[in-house]
């Protein structure tokens, strides 16, 4: 399905994402990497490590509801894939992001702006394999 080109909203949203990452560094001295935050909350080693991650995630989860209250509209989510593929994709995302020490937020937003050599390798790698995967699924297999 086609989706609308939204450069202004996307750029504005990006500014807020960046601001969130900067705030977390300012307040807690941490990188805003969703993989580290989620896995650190699930497999926590002490209560101190758990509490700020939970607070952060509760804030993230509250965001769509606050947008709904403010604008009357929930952010759009269109899922053009089957539940089985969500599970397959999710397990691969979890395994890969954990092995590669980061995902779009940690390596992408935070790593690139720090000019981290590891992130400068990781980001083009996962962007390329994502594009290849979508190409194969949509244009080779015809999904």
């Amino acid at each position, binding site marked *: 399905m086609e989706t609308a080109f939204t450069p202004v909203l996307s750029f504005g949203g990006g*500014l807020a994402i*960046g601001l969130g*990452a900067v705030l977390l560094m300012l307040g807690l001295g941490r*990188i805003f990497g969703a993989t580290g935050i989620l896995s650190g909350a699930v497999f926590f080693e002490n209560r101190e490590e758990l509490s*700020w991650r939970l607070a952060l995630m509760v804030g993230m*989860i509250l*965001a769509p509801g606050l947008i709904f209250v403010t604008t009357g509209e929930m952010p759009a989510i269109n899922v053009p894939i089957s539940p089985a593929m969500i599970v397959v994709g999710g397990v691969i995302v*979890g395994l890969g992001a954990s092995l*590669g020490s980061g995902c779009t937020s940690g390596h992408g937003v935070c790593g690139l702006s720090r000019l981290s050599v590891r992130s400068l390798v990781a980001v083009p790698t996962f962007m390329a394999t994502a594009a290849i995967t979508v190409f194969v699924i949509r244009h080779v297999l015809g999904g």
Partner: protein
Amino acid sequence: MKLLFALVTGIVFGTGIAISGMMDPAKVLNFFDLVGTWDSSLAFVMGGALVVTFVGYRLVWRRDAPLFGGRFQVPTGTEIDGKLVGGSALFGIGWGIAGFCPGAAIPALGTGRWEVALFLVAVVAGFGLRRLLAPIARNKVAP
């Protein structure tokens, strides 16, 4: 106070994710579908986020320590190894299959869509799989 700060930071980040279109798999998958229904919006998300983090991080690091104590915990590794490249490659494949990444899916949970919950459970299973595969070498901080 620290937890309230983390909560607000999560709201800022999650609002950015919601506004930007990152939590809509249809939009994410179209970003990667260069030869099909391409939607370049998400490049603007990364652009906006990087502008803020690139400048903001450097301003924050002029301080001696974060607002709520401790120290700035920034990954310093520069090693490009198979785990980084292979893990990132896998992450991209999963992202290309599911259309969600962890940083987008956590706020998306707030829309109440079951597909998001299913994805996140699968991601955590992927984290667990990684820990089963390599229970010793899991002390690296995700960037």
